[in-house]
């Protein structure tokens, strides 16, 4: 089974996807301050579907079936609560109590798409921290339970509950209205959403002690959400396409990065036959679509780097010169020390160990990087190539102290043994 098939299957989650859409529409109807109410209605609708379909089979359009049940439950609630104040009908975005019929239009396909993206923008509000953003996206739009989010982020349910609570409290206090921002604000807000999806994807992609299944699940969700952005005229922007290209190139390599026992296989030793050619082609298409307009985003450059790796027939034949130029362009956009570190790896392959070591001089004594295991691992590799065994081993040892992930520790132990 190829990675793209796996990812297609992971995306084919009827209940999850319907759940995300229903949450978005119901939050639009009830207001973000009534988020819990929206979740209750969704849970009810899904349970109705489950109980009915157990014996009768799944109808032809199960999503429409679920939406109808959710709509009817919403109407019931509005009738019951007309005289209560917990649903703010003075909000023009929400439903006037007299016009239940207009509730119908909330459930039209186009409106659902708008509401879904609107909710994505609400989750990525600048006043919500990035980790709370991705947590709430998984919970509300991807239909993850608290326990599933906790497993995905390798943390406790308690931590996730607190994060969700903070976001809900923020929604209650600020009464954010989910909507796709108007053109004047769209650019900055879209950046926040794309960064959040990038974070989500990395969470799935980083080879920590995640189980393969959860990792692929998270990756599939990031790809699905990015696809939703690309399906909509307002958010179909070149840098969203670039992000999708980046996701595709990375996802194409996911099955070649780990041994069956979970240990890491470095890029230079990966079996390139295992890379998913369909996903690489998909990434290519998106990269072409991203190449319009004048704005060059970091996603464009990261995708271009990933592309170079994907098309190289083997590690030695990688176009390091091109990759270096992309890293240089990236550094023009952002002074991120991690990019400088990654650039030094390209430098090592292109210009040798001395040049790579020089390129890292700027980072010496950098406090944040000093605590980053990869910095020491890269330094170790450079010293190893220079024949400075003692220095190399010391760096690998330091790197091993700094990572908690067992796979990474084993990888470094092998490096030390090999030096």
């Amino acid at each position, binding site marked *: 089974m190829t990675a793209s098939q796996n990812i297609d299957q992971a995306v084919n*989650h009827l*209940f*999850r996807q319907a759940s995300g859409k229903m949450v978005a529409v119901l939050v639009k109807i009830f207001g973000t301050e009534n988020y819990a109410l929206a979740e209750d209605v969704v849970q009810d609708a899904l349970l109705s*579907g*489950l109980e*009915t379909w*157990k014996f009768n089979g799944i109808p032809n359009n199960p999503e429409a079936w679920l939406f109808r049940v959710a709509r009817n439950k919403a109407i019931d609630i509005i009738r019951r609560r007309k005289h209560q104040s917990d649903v703010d009908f003075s909000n023009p975005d929400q439903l006037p109590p007299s016009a239940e019929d207009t509730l119908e239009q909330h459930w039209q396909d186009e409106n659902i798409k708008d509401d879904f993206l609107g909710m994505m923008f609400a989750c990525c509000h600048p006043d919500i921290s990035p980790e709370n953003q991705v947590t709430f996206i998984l919970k509300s739009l991807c239909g993850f339970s608290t*326990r*599933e989010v906790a497993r995905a982020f390798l943390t406790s349910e308690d931590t996730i509950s607190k994060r969700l609570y903070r976001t809900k409290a923020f929604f209650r206090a600020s009464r954010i209205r989910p909507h796709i921002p108007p053109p004047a604000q769209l650019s900055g807000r879209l950046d926040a959403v794309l960064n959040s999806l990038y974070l989500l994807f990395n969470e799935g992609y980083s080879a920590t002690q995640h189980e393969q299944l959860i990792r692929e699940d998270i990756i599939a969700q990031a790809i699905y959400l990015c696809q939703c952005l690309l399906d909509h005229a307002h958010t179909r922007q070149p840098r969203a396409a670039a992000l999708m290209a980046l996701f595709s190139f990375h996802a194409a390599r996911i099955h070649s990065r780990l041994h069956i026992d979970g240990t890491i296989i470095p890029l230079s030793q990966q079996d390139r036959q295992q890379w998913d050619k369909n996903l690489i082609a998909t990434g290519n298409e998106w990269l072409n679509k991203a190449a319009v307009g004048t704005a060059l985003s970091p996603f464009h450059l990261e995708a271009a780097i990933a592309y170079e790796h994907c098309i190289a027939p083997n590690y030695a034949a990688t176009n390091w010169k091109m990759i270096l130029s992309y890293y240089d362009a990236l550094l023009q956009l952002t002074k991120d020390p991690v990019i400088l570190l990654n650039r030094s790896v390209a430098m090592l392959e292109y210009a040798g160990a001395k040049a790579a070591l020089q390129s890292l001089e700027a980072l010496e004594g950098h406090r944040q990087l000093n605590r980053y295991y990869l910095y020491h691992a890269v330094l170790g590799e450079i010293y190893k190539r220079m024949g400075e065994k003692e220095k190399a081993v010391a760096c690998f040892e330091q790197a091993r102290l700094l990572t908690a992930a067992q796979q990474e520790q084993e990888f470094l132990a092998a490096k030390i043994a090999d030096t």
Partner: protein
Amino acid sequence: MQEFLVIIRGGKDPGLGSPQEMQEHLQHWQQWLGELMASGNYVAGQNLEPQGLTVLSNATVTDRPLAEGKELVAGYLVLRADNAAAAAELAKGCPGLPFGCTLEIRGIRQLH
């Protein structure tokens, strides 16, 4: 071969916390019933709404079923099997069992 009524009690499926778990549970049901159909053991089956009416012996009508919670009949199946033990064996595959439902198996009386 005789027909058996399988009365499924215990209306709710507690512990299904997420949409994904619900979908997986649904898939288990479809697989189980699909196998019973393929093997020719399945005759009929329906799921019941939790609410309902009860007519008492004095002919008054109450607006709820008599049983609640674990005793509530959630649905029924009619299975074809050699004997009650064989029907019970088939019923063991019910995906509701891990969630606390119980199955009562009763032979359906025949004229001949």
